[in-house]
């Protein structure tokens, strides 16, 4: 690659980092360079130190935490320590994962001005720079808006604009789309692609879901669980040669690569290299249409659905502070059914799940759980039959150790200690956390926290489990393990209601999909039928799952061929 011959703009040598009171380092001997104008994808399983590395490069670490950094980082040949306070931030900008906690002012304009003032921009230039940056991310109409009224996607665009206004040489994106719905996240990647074509900065992207990013990255750097560099090279080479290793580390693969890998195993993919794009993938199949059937990983539908309805929502409405958050929603959940709730950010999904869990009381309408209204249930008995998993696992933790966390609800029921111990041990074993039993829940890794939060809801063997976006920000392994747990739940006769942005989950697992938009139910039915309803897909900011997209692509290619032939 010709870019590599340029002089590097950022270089780390033997970079190690560890927290002061922890022996095990987060990063170990990390050595890599970033060249002007290139886009690098930083991959790794959760807990591998990707964010830590990003913060070190930005000089946020080790100053912000009690940590020790060994080795060197240099920017344009100058050591990072030699830069004055705040100086490096003009050159290296970062967009964080959480849209809520990265702003410190109340309006869009003030937030942008904040960064520019910090950089000592002459006041008479600030106005034009603000407009310019907002124009780049298509947010100019919102210049005078209050930040808390923006949607999640708009907030991330604003965060991007804040960084761009400083004209950085390097832009670091730390999982910028993790909290966004599929359409907003796609839009953000397109804006970044557009920017990359017109501007000269280098990009360092940390992401789990790679499909939308793959066409704009030149190179991949992969970290393993120990915080060491596993691979550093071109994107094509990375996925061609190391796909299996990446999979083993629990790293998400781009859909095309995953499909190619599966195809290769089944002996239907004939391409020499694993495909990076759909075009390559389709070209590699001898018989694409046949391949589709093999690749389709949809679970076998439960043929013998027990027709017993365990939860019914009747004309649910909910308003808060004069706003109608939910309007007239009705649906039901059968025993053994997997129901998914989808919709854009702010469409009322979480509110609905809280209503179903009995945490909020509906303004109008009724929820029946086993023939009696939720409000008639005794709290203690209800919680033994109905579990709720929060979007953020940390929100759920209330005990001081992993063991107590799971034992908590059992203790409330005054079950004998010996039985509790047995149940907890079994649950910990099921989610592979036995060795962490004495740790504090907050000290676990992201993936472990997620598994713990689900495990604490499985011990009672609840009949219905409600989950609020349990897979967001999780690596491939955690996500897979989680879905396995839920599958077991379903097979043993439990029901699952899950909010998700992940169209692949909808496609592979859901028996029924409910789509919300602005508090109203706009779809209730099979996932397969949903993909064909273009209008609903658009209103709800959904995207077709990969396999459906592939089917369309194959169709259009085949159609094209036919046209050529005739």
């Amino acid at each position, binding site marked *: 690659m010709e870019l590599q011959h340029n002089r590097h703009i950022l270089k780390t040598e033997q970079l190690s980092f560890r927290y002061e009171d922890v022996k095990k380092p987060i990063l170990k001997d990390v050595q890599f360079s970033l060249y002007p104008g290139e886009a690098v994808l930083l991959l790794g399983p959760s807990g591998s130190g990707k964010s830590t590395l990003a913060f070190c490069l930005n000089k*946020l670490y080790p100053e912000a935490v009690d940590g020790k950094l060994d080795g060197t980082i240099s920017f344009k040949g100058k050591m990072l320590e030699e830069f004055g306070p705040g100086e490096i931030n003009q050159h290296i900008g970062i967009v964080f994962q959480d849209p*809520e906690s*990265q702003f410190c002012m109340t309006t869009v304009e003030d937030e942008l001005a*904040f960064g520019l003032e910090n950089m*000592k921009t002459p006041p008479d230039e600030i106005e034009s720079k603000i407009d310019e940056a907002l124009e780049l991310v298509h947010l100019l109409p919102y210049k005078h808006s209050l930040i*808390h009224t923006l949607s999640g996607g708009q907030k991330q665009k604003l965060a991007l604009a804040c960084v761009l206004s400083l004209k950085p040489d390097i832009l670091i994106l730390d999982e910028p789309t993790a909290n966004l719905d599929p359409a907003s996240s796609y839009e953000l990647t397109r804006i970044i692609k557009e920017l990359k074509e017109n501007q000269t900065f280098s990009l360092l992207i940390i992401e789990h879901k790679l499909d939308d990013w793959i066409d704009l990255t030149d190179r991949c750097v992969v970290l393993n669980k120990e915080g060491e560099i596993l691979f550093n090279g071109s994107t094509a080479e990375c996925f061609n040669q190391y796909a299996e290793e990446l999979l083993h580390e629990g790293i998400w693969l781009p859909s095309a690569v995953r499909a190619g890998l599966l195809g290769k195993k089944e002996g239907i993919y004939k391409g020499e290299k694993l495909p990076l794009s759909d075009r390559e993938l389709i070209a590699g199949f001898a018989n694409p249409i046949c391949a589709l059937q093999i690749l389709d990983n949809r679970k076998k539908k439960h043929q013998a659905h027990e027709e017993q309805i365990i939860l019914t929502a009747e004309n649910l409405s909910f308003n808060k502070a004069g706003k109608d958050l939910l309007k007239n929603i009705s649906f039901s959940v059968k025993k053994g059914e997997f129901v998914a709730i989808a919709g854009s950010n702010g469409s009322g999904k979480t509110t609905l799940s809280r209503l179903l869990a009995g945490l909020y009381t509906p303004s109008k309408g009724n929820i029946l759980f086993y023939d009696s209204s939720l409000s008639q249930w005794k709290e203690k008995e209800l919680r033994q039959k109905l579990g709720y998993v*929060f979007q953020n696992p940390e929100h759920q933790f*209330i005990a001081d150790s992993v063991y107590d966390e799971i034992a908590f609800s059992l203790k409330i029921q005054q079950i004998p200690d010996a039985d509790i111990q047995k149940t907890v041990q079994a649950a910990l074993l099921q989610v592979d956390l036995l060795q962490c039993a004495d740790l504090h829940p907050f000290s676990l890794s992201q993936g472990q926290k997620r598994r713990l939060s689900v495990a604490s809801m499985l011990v009672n063997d609840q009949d219905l489990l409600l989950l609020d976006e349990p897979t967001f920000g999780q690596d491939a392994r955690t996500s897979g393990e989680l879905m396995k747990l839920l599958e077991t739940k379903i097979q043993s006769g439990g029901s699952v209601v899950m909010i998700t942005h992940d169209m692949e989950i909808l496609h592979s697992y859901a028996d029924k999909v409910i789509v919300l938009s602005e508090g109203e139910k706009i779809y209730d039915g099979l996932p397969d039928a949903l993909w064909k309803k273009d209008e609903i897909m658009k209103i709800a900011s959904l995207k077709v799952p990969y396999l459906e997209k592939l089917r369309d692509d194959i169709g259009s290619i085949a159609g094209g061929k036919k046209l050529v032939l005739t």
Partner: protein
Amino acid sequence: MFLHEFNPSVKAFTVIVCVLILSVFFDPVTPFLTLVMTAAATFIFGRVSFKRWILLFSPFIFMAAIYIWSALIFSKTIEGETILWSWGIFTLTEEGFLRALSLGMRVLSFTSLSLLFILTTKPTEFLLSLMQQCRLSPKLAYGIMAGYRFLPLMKEEFEIIRSAHRIRGVPKARKLSEKMAELKRYAVPLLAGAIRKAERTAMAMESKGFTGDKNRDFHHKISVSWKDWACFTFFIGAVLGSAYISWLFGFLQLYNGEL
């Protein structure tokens, strides 16, 4: 000129000076006239709706009423005062009545001045003005601004923690001891959550190059002009005018340790 455009620092200074002047006098008429004037200014120049104002003002009316009541009932009677009414151990004198009224009016006039400031000032602008006019350290000012954004989030966080307990089947706390235990259980995660959020925001501020440097050129300039000082003079004049009118009618009295 509207009160919203009144420089926040000068406005705050005006309110403080007015309060100080008012505390020198102790008669019901001066604070009453000031109260009327301040309230009128709030409605006319501050464009504050009466409904909103009275909502915030009414608790203080209640408070003032209690003050007046207790000062009436429990006032000491000094030799030579005009007795208006007497029943058993309670004696109401004209002077005692005026004292009680003065106290109540004082409370209300202070309240109206504070409301004038609160209802016509944006917190962000006040902090910007404090930085620009009073050399308040940016570290502190931006810290307060970020913290101000967190306040509504704390309530949300509290709800979340309570839900987390409810889904585990924690029964509702009824007895006092249970409530204390509940509070203790909530306090730690609430604090931990606040600290984590604060850390994240601090990092975001730092990543935008914030160093707390005092030499800062602001995009949003809050200036002081002759208009602000004219406004200042107007309010001080109005308070002194109230005192003058009170003196004309023979009510004016200096505060002399009556309470």
